[in-house]
């Protein structure tokens, strides 16, 4: 349940940034959490729901963008869609792959 830690961090970042902008209320929070970021979205929703009351995010709409995964073969450099950590390079067959996209774990923006 590392989603609880992730939810706490999100609220802290939003509170800090809203404070810098002189606001104690946030209308919208946009998160970018990739499909390969190791986050269970339902568990994160649950954690946010539990922790948000009484914070700057109390009335905020939460938008989660979920970039899909893509990988690059460390052997031949081929780039391809990569959804679940499994498999091998479709071009050369190597299993030595690097994640290029899909492991994003960011607070993208807030709207106040």
């Amino acid at each position, binding site marked *: 349940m590392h989603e609880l*830690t992730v939810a706490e961090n*999100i609220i802290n*970042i939003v509170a800090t940034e809203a404070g810098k902008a002189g606001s104690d209320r946030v*209308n*919208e929070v946009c*998160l970018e959490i990739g499909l390969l970021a190791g986050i269970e979205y339902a568990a994160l929703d649950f954690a946010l729901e539990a922790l948000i009351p009484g914070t700057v995010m109390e009335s905020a709409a939460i938008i989660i963008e979920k970039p899909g995964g893509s990988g690059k073969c460390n052997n031949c450099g081929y780039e391809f869609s990569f959804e679940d950590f499994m498999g091998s390079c479709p071009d050369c067959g190597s299993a030595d792959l690097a994640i290029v996209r899909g492991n994003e774990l960011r607070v*993208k*923006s807030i*709207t106040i």
Partner: protein
Amino acid sequence: MCDICGCGESNEHSHDHNHNHHHDHDHSHDEKVTIPLGRDILEINNRLAERTRGYFEARDIYALNIMSSPGSGKTTFLERTLTDLKGKKSFYVIEGDQQTSRDADRISTTGVPVIQVNTGNACHLDAGMVNRAVKGLNPDNGSVLLIENVGNLICPSMFDLGEMSRIVMMSVTEGEDKPLKYPGMFRTSNLCIINKTDLLPYVNFKVETAVENGLKVNGRLKFIEVSALTGAGMEEWYKWLLANAG
């Protein structure tokens, strides 16, 4: 048009009588502002982990983050390692568990300095816990720090502790499909220890299948088969450890 917000309501009007009155109209001027951030959600952990890693590098300390599910034999593996390598290298241990100091008590019988970190409700060690523990241990220059994480194959993989390498342990009583079920953990590890090989005659576990599955999620993963109980295979692990620790 309103000069302030452009809302279309005029505060000027034409009329054919001659008197003064104010032309304010009453509405709120809420303007939503979107602030782009792009802030890493784990930035506090990751920054602290980098600081700890810098400290390790400056003092030539080799730190290992050892992870597995509960009951794979991490503590027995460490006990044997510390006993067998006594005098060859200076060791320190951080023990992570939700509660109790049982593991630290076991390690301390080897004479190696150890700190127990109880994570309470957290299912993983984080960089802050390790940073504080390292300050308490004050490891010697050139030493090896073994960090035994909380037994859990999911959450610990997300948290950089400042280590140089990650070890994931699986035992032959667990099933060869662990890497496929918990790819995040196996994907981020450098070495996989397959423990409890003394039980291979009694269980339906094929080492080749486990290795094959591990390589499916991480083509660079290395494997060493051991029995921490009997000591079989431990020499290969010691070679790996001493070669990496320099």
